[in-house]
């Protein structure tokens, strides 16, 4: 078991023939991911990286049974790509694109609300189930198979956490990069819930950052769930000044409840093993797993 993506996922790449799409699709295929094709409007019928190119997502669903997509479409067109995928019946929509206007994401997230799909991202590194499927831009070799699930808003910090977990002799079930934008499809709480409910996942690493309420919501859900699976948490940005955007569009301290300190306090109160140092994530997970 794993969550969201596995060896049986039929994955397409939207923005397949662009430079980002080409590079990362190549890496995904090399990893052994089941990429069944891609979509670039106007290039339908061609073959790219040995896979068929379609004009529309709908064609990809009809012809190669696509059920999962990864989007590399430029920001101005990315929200449209998300809605196209949802309309065509894609179940898991992973959006890597950074810099999508907020107004476009308001429209897209409203549009997909009543569709049977899950959006991951945007502005995220993607999702990886080690040994089965890499649907993202992360370095595959860092992630070894195992029993720890990872949820994170950040790319390189996810790799850092995975590396620390692996160096403790442990491994990863699925790592989910949920993205650092103000509006994202899958929240920290939803991602943690997926992993807690996954029978193979024995512990969860939850990495957040300043801004918003997602970590507090996840912590409150975890406490209410009564789950016995340990969760190790870290919040980046304790030293970030208020009112400044720290790289990620969503990483900004507005009020007193979205500081790193406030979030950690709630997480601790909900039974999450919070580490203050980002260097101690791996050690802590080994400790809680005994």
């Amino acid at each position: 078991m794993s969550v969201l993506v596995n060896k049986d996922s039929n994955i397409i790449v939207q923005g397949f023939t662009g430079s980002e799409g080409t590079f990362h699709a190549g890496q995904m295929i090399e990893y052994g991911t089941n990429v069944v094709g891609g979509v670039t409007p106007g290039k339908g019928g061609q073959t790219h990286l040995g896979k068929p190119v379609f004009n529309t997502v709908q064609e990809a669903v009809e012809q190669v049974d696509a059920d999962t997509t990864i989007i590399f479409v430029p920001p101005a067109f990315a929200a449209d790509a998300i809605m196209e995928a949802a309309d065509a019946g894609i179940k898991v929509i992973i959006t890597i694109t950074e810099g999508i206007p907020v107004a476009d994401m308001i429209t897209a997230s409203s549009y997909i609300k009543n569709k049977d799909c899950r959006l991951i991202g945007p502005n995220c590194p993607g999702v990886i189930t080690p040994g089965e499927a890499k649907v993202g831009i992360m370095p595959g070799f860092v992630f070894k198979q195992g029993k720890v699930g990872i949820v994170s808003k950040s790319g390189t910090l996810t790799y850092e956490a995975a590396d620390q977990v692996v160096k403790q002799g442990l491994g990863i079930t699925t790592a989910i990069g949920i993205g650092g934008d103000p509006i994202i499809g899958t929240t920290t709480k939803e991602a943690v819930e997926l992993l807690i409910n996954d029978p193979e996942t024995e512990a969860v690493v939850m990495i957040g950052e300043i801004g918003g309420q997602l970590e507090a919501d996840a912590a409150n859900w975890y406490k209410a769930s009564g789950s016995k699976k340990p969760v190790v948490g870290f919040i980046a940005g304790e030293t970030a000044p208020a009112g400044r955007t720290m790289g990620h569009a969503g990483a900004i301290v507005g009020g007193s409840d979205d500081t790193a300190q406030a979030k950690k306090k709630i997480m601790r109160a909900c039974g999450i093993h919070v580490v203050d140092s980002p260097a101690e994530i791996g050690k802590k997970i080994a400790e809680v797993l005994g």
Partner: protein
Amino acid sequence: MNLHEYQGKEILSSFGVRIQRGIVAQNAQEAVAAAKQLTSETGTSWHVIKAQVHAGGRGKGGGVKLAKNLKEVEEIAGQIIGMDLITPQTSAEGKRVHQVLVAEDVYYPGDSETNEFYMSVLLNRGTGRNMIMYSTEGGMDIETVAEETPHLIFTEEIDPAVGLMPFQARRVAFNLGLSGLAFKEMTKFVANLYTAYVKSDSSLFEINPVLKTSDDKIMAVDAKVTIDDNALYRHKNYVDLRDVREESAIEVEAGELGLNYVDLDGNVGCMVNGAGLAMATMDLIKQAGGEPANFLDVGGTADAARVEAAFKIILKDPAVKAILINIFGGIVRCDRVAQGVIDAYKNMGNINVPIIVRLQGTNADIAKELIDNSGLDVMSATEFQEAADKVQQVLS
């Protein structure tokens, strides 16, 4: 992108939102001319001189003053322009004022009492929808209102599929206790304000106060407007509204070099790939006994040119006593980053602070060897904790 009050008001006005009218002036003479013109256009006899800086609480710092005649306009404008305005939202040094808005007096006496309200439009991150937040307590700091009298703050969330509905605009006007002409004016004000927010791709409108005049007009007396940077590509006419004088010079320069940089007050500079890891690295510096001097995300391509650009930006800050480079090489190979660091270091030739380079990920071992054999005053590390220990070591 943050706008000045006068720029924000121009945008509001272009969508039919009634505003307190004004003319921007760069010096006392221009202020007098502006006051004369405003009197002829609006009939106002008094004028309000308002400092134009990107900070709230301007009145508290002496940046907003009433002038009752042209002599006072000249005097007050002369005082405010060039001053370092200190408000609760600026640093202790304050912000230099380069221009003032000469505005009409809208608190004139009339048939009814004037009344001030608060109104903002912003994203509710929890629901992914825009909302209008408003209060009967205008002219006050909204954070204080939220703490002391939260029942006086109302919200109206907007369904993106249909937009702001008339019943919602009416509810706003009712909750603000309005009736008659002022009620009608308010529903129009709210509708136009929301249209302006959406059409301008803004991420924040804060109108404090919204004024009901003594003749029952509703108008924006102040305007804090933030435009969504990601949407600027479809608003070419707004690009020129950016006032780089309001931003830190070093951040502007870093931005031009493609570096995501935020200037901080500490003593340890850092250079990291990825925003989350950059924040985590700042936190680690603090735990190692230092204070981060900056946030710097070099992005995915940490080659020699970018590393050199980042070095130059970090070293502009004389408070920097050490630099920690923390790169997790995924797609980008660590040995290439290491070579970039070595080349940049040699090119610059005058780096006088210790440098700690922590490279992890693809080819991290080759990278460490490159650094260790470079003969430069650069310490290498592979583990995160090891990097923190070395920071501690050089600081002590």
